[in-house]
């Protein structure tokens, strides 16, 4: 691979109103950026849900962060207490990135 470096990829499924809180936690963990996209529906223990723009309360987003292992650890540790109360789903995996100094 042409000059790629390993970084951690963390994805969090989160209700839209809670995104600012997540972003703040990422920043506190030293992570400088994130990317969001809207998910349009799903099923889980809480039943089926679909988009909800009217109240915005149950609209969900995918919150993607690329970070070094150390920062990723810190971010995930900060998420731990919120997992149940905020009904978060957290995934972590490894990716190769270019320009690793950015993350």
């Amino acid at each position, binding site marked *: 691979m042409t000059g790629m470096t390993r970084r951690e990829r963390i994805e969090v499924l989160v*209700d*839209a*109103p*809670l995104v*600012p*809180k997540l972003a703040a936690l990422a920043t506190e963990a030293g992570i400088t950026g994130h990317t969001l996209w809207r998910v349009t529906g799903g099923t889980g223990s*809480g*039943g*089926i*849900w679909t*988009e*909800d*723009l*009217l*109240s*915005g*309360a*149950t609209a969900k987003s995918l919150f993607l962060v690329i970070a070094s292992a150390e920062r990723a650890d810190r971010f995930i540790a900060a998420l731990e207490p*919120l997992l149940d*109360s*905020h*009904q978060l789903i957290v995934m972590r995996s490894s990716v190769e990135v270019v320009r690793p100094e950015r993350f």
Partner: protein
Amino acid sequence: MFDQIAASLLSPPILFFALGALAALARSDLAVPETVAKGLSLYLMAAIGLKGGVEVSRIGIGGDLGIALLAGFVLSCAIPFAVAPVLRRFGRLDRINAGAIAAHYGSVSVVTFVTANQIYAGSGFAAAGFMVAVLAIMETPAILSGLLIARRGTGGKLFEPRLLHEVAFNGSVVLLLGSFAIGMLIGEQGYQPISPLFTAGFTGVLCLFLLDMGLIAVRRLMQTRALNLQLAVLGVIFPLANGAIGVAAGTLIGLDAASAAVLGVLAGSASYIAVPAAMRMSLPQADAGLYLAMSLGVTFPFNIIVGIPLFRWLAENLGGLT
């Protein structure tokens, strides 16, 4: 009163609401895109704000506005405290869920207000224009009451600064009050060029929006797992009780019968736009499925069909007593 229920049931907006509800019941795939529904709701808020402002510019504010605003503010602050104990005892909810739901009932439903106004005015029972400002003032104070209920005794800080900001500058509050101010500024003459969109088109847009609300309300009810019979019953009792209190308060402070009826509609309605997002943000532990099922799935349809004619009847009869 039954005449009025029948007449209101045959008005196009209510019929479209029923169509949406039936389609959802039959599990039809009929759906209004979320962004279109959001656009329609912005239109309705701008239109209702403008119309209220223009009317105030025509008639003058009068002494009633101040007292009506105060009454609305007090109702929005106080209703959650009346409602929460019932939710805890009869509904068997914990403090957090009780606080979250209570906030919804203290706040108001813009669409219920709009529908009531349309149906009342269509039969010569028009409320004062300034009731839009009362609507706006009632939207968010209940959020603070609900949080107070949920957090009292937990020792944490009560309100994040971000929340106070959200309460004051919530999008629908800003749009309602802003268009109200614009309506007052431009007056009837300035309103002329925009009245084809905001007045002539209004009832039709309301029909399309209520079609969507019928779909959403029933789907919400069918998807929910958390709602039990007790809570469903409370979803009917709260609008009855709060609405009656609102009508009585309106009559006591000397509002005309139509405005008192509208104050009843406001007190009896429950929010499903401003409050749910604020609760999800500030009380994420509360069950969003629950408060949306109650406000959107039970109370909203009940008010649209029964509450609106009922509060009118009440206001007319209470008005006769004084």
